[in-house]
C-alpha cells in the first residue's frame, strides 16, 4: 500500500530550499532592498539603520549627504532599535547604526560588529495629551489618578524603560491601560483620544505637528535617553559610512536634530 518514491524526490526540494537559505546568508532578508550588487556601485550607497524616532531628522540629513556627495545615495531602515540590532547581528549589510539606547547598541558592539559608538543626541520624555486635554493633565502626578487612562511603552523598548525610570524617580505608581510595543503606537493612542495621557519623547510630540500637546516635567531629566551612533566594522560602504557619521556629529547635523526636538549630549 505504501508508495515509494526515489530518494532524490525528497532530497531535491530540500536542497532547493536549503540552497535558497544559503543565498540568504550572503544577502540576508530584512534589508534585501539595500543590498548592492557590484563593488563599484557599493561605494556609492550608504545603508543606515536608525531608530524610528530619528525618521524625520535623518531623512533630512540623508538629503544633505547626497547633495554633498554627488552620485551617492543614502538608504534608511527605520525601526525599533532592538529589532535593528538583531538584524545587524544576523548579518544585515548595514553601514551605520543609530540606536535609541546604549543597551541596544551594546548588542552590536558585544558582537564586535562596531566599536566606540558616540552619543550624538539625547531625548527627553514629555507627557503627551490629546489637544483638548480631556483629563486636565498638567503634571506627572496626575498620571497616577486611576481615572486618567495612561498609555506607556512596554518596558522592553527604550521609551518604556525611560518611563519606568522617570516614574520611579518621582516615586509615583501609575497603572497604565496598555503597554505599547513602540513609541509611535503609544502616540497614536493619544492622537485618537483613546487614552488621556502617555509618556513619549519630546521629539515625537514635535513630529506630531499639533495633534497632541506636550507637557514637560522635571523628572524627565532623570530618564534621559542617550542615542549612540557608530559606523559598522564590516560596512560595505567603507569610508562613506564614517563620513555619514561625521555629518550627523557636525554642527549642521546637530542643527537639524535640535530642530526635531533632540538635545545635545
Amino acid at each position, binding site marked *: 500500500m505504501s*508508495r515509494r*518514491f526515489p530518494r532524490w*524526490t*525528497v532530497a*531535491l*526540494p*530540500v536542497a*532547493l*530550499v536549503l540552497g535558497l*537559505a544559503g543565498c540568504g546568508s550572503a544577502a540576508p532578508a530584512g534589508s534585501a532592498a539595500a543590498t548592492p550588487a557590484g563593488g563599484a556601485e557599493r561605494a556609492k550607497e550608504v545603508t543606515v539603520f536608525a531608530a524610528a524616532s530619528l525618521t524625520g531628522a535623518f531623512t533630512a540629513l540623508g538629503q544633505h549627504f547626497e547633495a554633498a556627495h554627488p552620485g551617492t545615495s543614502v538608504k534608511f531602515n527605520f525601526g*525599533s532599535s*532592538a*529589532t535593528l540590532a*538583531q538584524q545587524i547581528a544576523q548579518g544585515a549589510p548595514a553601514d551605520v547604526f543609530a540606536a535609541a539606547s546604549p543597551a541596544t547598541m551594546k548588542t552590536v558592539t558585544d558582537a564586535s560588529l562596531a566599536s566606540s559608538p558616540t552619543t550624538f543626541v539625547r531625548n527627553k520624555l514629555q507627557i503627551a495629551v490629546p489637544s483638548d486635554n480631556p483629563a486636565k493633565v498638567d503634571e506627572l502626578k496626575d498620571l497616577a489618578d486611576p481615572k486618567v*487612562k495612561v*498609555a506607556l511603552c*512596554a518596558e*522592553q*523598548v527604550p521609551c518604556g524603560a525611560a518611563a519606568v525610570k522617570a516614574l520611579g524617580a518621582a516615586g509615583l505608581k501609575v497603572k*497604565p*491601560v*496598555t*503597554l*505599547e*510595543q513602540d513609541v509611535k*503606537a503609544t502616540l*497614536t*493612542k493619544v492622537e*485618537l*483620544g*483613546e487614552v488621556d495621557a502617555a509618556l513619549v519623547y519630546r521629539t515625537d510630540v514635535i513630529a506630531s505637528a499639533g495633534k497632541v500637546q506636550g507637557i514637560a516635567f522635571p523628572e524627565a531629566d532623570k530618564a534621559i535617553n542617550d542615542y549612540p551612533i557608530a559606523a559598522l566594522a564590516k560596512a560595505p560602504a567603507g569610508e562613506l559610512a564614517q563620513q555619514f557619521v561625521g555629518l550627523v556629529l557636525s554642527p549642521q547635523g546637530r542643527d537639524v536634530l535640535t530642530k526635531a526636538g533632540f538635545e545635545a549630549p
Partner: protein
Amino acid sequence: MGAATEHHRTAPARPPWVLLVPALAGLAFLVLPLAGLLVRAPWSTLPARLAEPYVLEALRLSLVTATIATAMSLLLGVPLAWLLARTDFPGRRLVRALVTVPLVLPPVVGGVALLLVLGRRGLVGQWLESAFGITLPFTTAGVVVAEAFVAMPFLVISVEGALRAADRRYEEAAATLGASRWTVFRRVTLPMVMPGVVAGAVLCWARALGEFGATITFAGNFPGTTRTMPLAVYLALETEPEAAIVLSLVLLAVSVVILASLRDRWVSAP
C-alpha cells in the same frame, strides 16, 4: 491475472513528477522554518521559562479570547453566510466583497479602523460609553472584538462555500414535510453543511489565536487583560529572542494538538 490486478491497483496511484516535486518543495518551504525554531529553541532552560507565570497567563488569555471570538463569529457569521448564499438582494456581490475586506486589510489598519468606530471617541464607541458605560479598547472584550474582526471572514467564506455546494433539494423536501424556513435551516441545512462550518470555525480559531496587529492596535497590550501570546512573543523578541521562540513553540504545540484532534473527530467525517 494476479499481475494484472496488481498493475491496476498501483498504476493510478503514482503521482506525476510535475506535481510531486513542487508539492514536496512546498512542504519543505512550510515546514523548514518550524525546524528552524526547533533547532534554535533553548531546550536546557525550556522548563524554567515555561514555568514563568506570564507564559501561562498569556496562553490562557489567548485560548479564551480565540475561543470566544470563534463563538461570536459562528453566531454572526453563519447567518451572514446563509444570507449571502441563499438570498438575492441588490448589492449582494458588493456585500460579499466587503465581507472579505478584513482578509486583505493589514491587521494594524483594521485595528485603527476599529478604534475609529468602537474607540472612546469612535462613532459607536462614544455612544456605547455614554449610554452603557462600556469601553472596548484596552479590555479583554476588545481583544475578542479585534480577533473576531480579522478571523470571521474565514468562517463566512468557508460556510458560504459549503452552503452553495449543498443540495438545496433536501431543503425543498423538508418544506414539503411542513418545516418552516427556520426549522429547515436548523434541522436540515446546518447538519448538512456541518463539515464546512467546523472547517471554517477551525480556520477562524487558528487565525484568532495568531492575531497580532489588530489586537495590539485596538486592544492595546497589558499583561493579564490584553497581552495574548502573539503580543508576548513580539515584545519578547525586542529583548529576549530565545523567550520569543519558547512562547511561539507553546502556541504552536497547543494549536497543533487542538486542530489535529478536531480534524479527526469532525473534518474527516464523510
